[in-house]
């Protein structure tokens, strides 16, 4: 098992009190597979990914749990040790390609920087950083790789910038790629291109992917297993095919129902989930039996008992 996250909790110190944005989250990722964290904005998916790569902001702290990567517990690493993992064993790509690339540095240099930083590690020892960068640009499907090396980010389109970001993340052939909503800022056709590029690279390099998205369509085609998150907790987890066929948790059901379908009657109202995700500060102050209670359509006495469904885990307390 490449990555084992167990009972991870992250707390933020804010002026309104402590906010436990991630509360007891667990999931596993096998080598070469894709695991996706799905959920609405504010449910803690991005914070979880930042915790895994060790880049939580200053006012956040780990409040328990383990992150076991290739057998080592990352939570116990010093800053220098952790830095050795970033870029070489774990790569990360971000949502907004324009702000994720330095606007005054040429894209080729940005890729090369990633290579030069980890050059002393064995797989990269004898590679010429320039050649490898051009190779990567070519692998990403960008035409005229040698010329594109010298371009600035503003000279490239959104899709190309995202490809460059992927190139930077994969430059040192990491075992895990964390992709935080990589296609949310792109149009649909570009989305498709980027996702298939990622799949192709995953096959070639054997990289595992931790994908974060709120788009179930992206999940369907690109992930092996998924965790549905709400208010800092995992409410349902399991293989993608199973959950898609048989969503158990009311929240997951509601998410699927909210997807507009080609077969729905024109003029009918779209399904929504009433209310909205409360701010993270209030997560552990929620009185109800489960955090989704207030917005849940079921809400009966079964909520006060525990259960789980064979095949995949659902943390709804109703009996099925």
């Amino acid at each position, binding site marked *: 098992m490449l990555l084992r996250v167990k009972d991870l909790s992250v707390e933020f110190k804010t002026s309104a009190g402590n906010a436990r944005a991630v509360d007891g989250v667990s999931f596993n990722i096998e080598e070469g597979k894709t695991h996706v964290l799905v959920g609405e904005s504010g449910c803690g998916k991005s914070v979880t990914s930042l915790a895994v*790569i060790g*880049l939580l902001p*200053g006012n956040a702290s780990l409040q328990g749990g383990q992150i076991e990567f290739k057998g080592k517990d990352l939570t116990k690493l010093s800053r220098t040790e952790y*830095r*050795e*993992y*970033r*870029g*070489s064993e*774990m*790569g*990360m*790509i*971000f*949502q*907004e390609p*324009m*702000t*994720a*690339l*330095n*606007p*005054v*540095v040429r894209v080729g240099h940005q890729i090369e*920087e*990633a290579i030069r*930083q*980890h050059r002393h590690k064995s797989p990269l020892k004898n590679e010429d950083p320039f050649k490898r960068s051009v190779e990567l640009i070519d692998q990403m499907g960008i035409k005229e790789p040698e010329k594109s090396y010298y371009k*600035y980010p*503003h*000279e490239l389109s959104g899709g190309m910038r995202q490809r460059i*970001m992927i190139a*930077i*993340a994969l430059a040192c052939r990491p075992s895990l790629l964390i992709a935080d909503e990589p296609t949310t800022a792109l149009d649909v056709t570009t989305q498709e291109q980027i996702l298939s590029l990622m799949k192709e690279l995953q096959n070639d390099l054997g990289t595992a992917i931790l994908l974060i998205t709120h788009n179930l369509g992206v999940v369907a085609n690109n992930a092996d297993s998924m965790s549905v998150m709400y208010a800092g907790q995992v409410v349902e987890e399991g293989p993608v095919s199973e959950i898609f066929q048989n969503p158990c948790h009311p929240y997951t059901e509601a998410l699927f129902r909210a997807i507009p379908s080609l077969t729905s009657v024109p003029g009918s109202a779209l399904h929504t989930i009433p209310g909205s995700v409360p701010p993270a500060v209030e997560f552990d102050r929620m009185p109800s039996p489960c955090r989704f209670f207030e917005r849940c359509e079921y809400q009966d006495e079964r909520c006060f008992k525990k259960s789980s469904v064979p095949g995949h885990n659902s943390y709804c307390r109703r009996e099925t």
Partner: protein
Amino acid sequence: MILILLGDLFWLAVFTLSVYTVFRILKHSSLSDAVDSMKKKRRVRIAFYVICIYFLIGFVDQLKIPGTGTTTEFSPIDFFFQTYIEKERTYSAPWAKRVTGISEENLHEEINLVKGLHLLGTDVNGYDVFYTIFKGAGTALILSFGTSIIAFPLGVALGILAGFFGGWVDDLIQWLYTTVASIPWLLFVIAFLMVFGRELYWICLAFGLTSWVGIARLVRGETLKIKQLDYILAAKATGIPVLRILYKHLLPNVTYLIIINFTLFSSNVILAESVLTFIGIGVQPGTASWGVMLVEAQQELTRSPAIWWIFAGGSFVGILPLVLSLNLFGDALRDALDPRLRGQN
């Protein structure tokens, strides 16, 4: 002798570096629309050329050619004026045919019509006023570059550290620059120069140590904005150590502030030198500067007939065009670079 040649090489290097920097900026693709918008305005183009001319004259004045046994080192400007323009006995008005005498016998000496053509007249020692203006440009250049080389690295470095790290580092640096800013500037400079001396390099140091605060504040503010951006997080996610991030990712993105503020800063320095000289604590008596011209003009203007051409030269040919151009250009730079970089997508 060797020192002089080293000095020449140094100034040649500075010159080449400046020209190279300007060209790099002009050709940088992410600045191309800013440059274009500036090129279109005639006012800005003229301001730019004026600045270039003054700085060029200033640079030329720094190249000292070693003298022979009896003469000291001299610059090409000295050479030009010594050879081609006649040194008169004393004052003469612009384009005058006669020297203004002090003693009775040489009251109305004739002026050589070719070599003696003084476009702005001559000063008390008979030197062409343009000569003093050119030498003053040299002083202005030294002050501008000298003060910048002290104030900018200090201000930018502290600004970036304060903005990026926050916490006690920020508190410490803010305390430092607030304290420096609360010292009455003039008193500090006067005290400093009285202790260390009034050579140009001491003046540069005095100015530099007090004026780094402005750039530090600006850079700190910009750093606070930039450190939230994804590419800083992405650089961290690639495992790049913090100091390298500051140097390779943050610094290039605050460079536009340095460019803008260099021009405005230089104009302030030139004016400040005039103020100091007016008070009497400025450049040493032997050094030529526009401030000195203004100070001497005080008495000269009270003579009858008034000797106005030195004042006119120092202020309207010396200070005014350069300071005005620096300000115009700096403002145009700020308009072109600031909103452009923020709205760029």
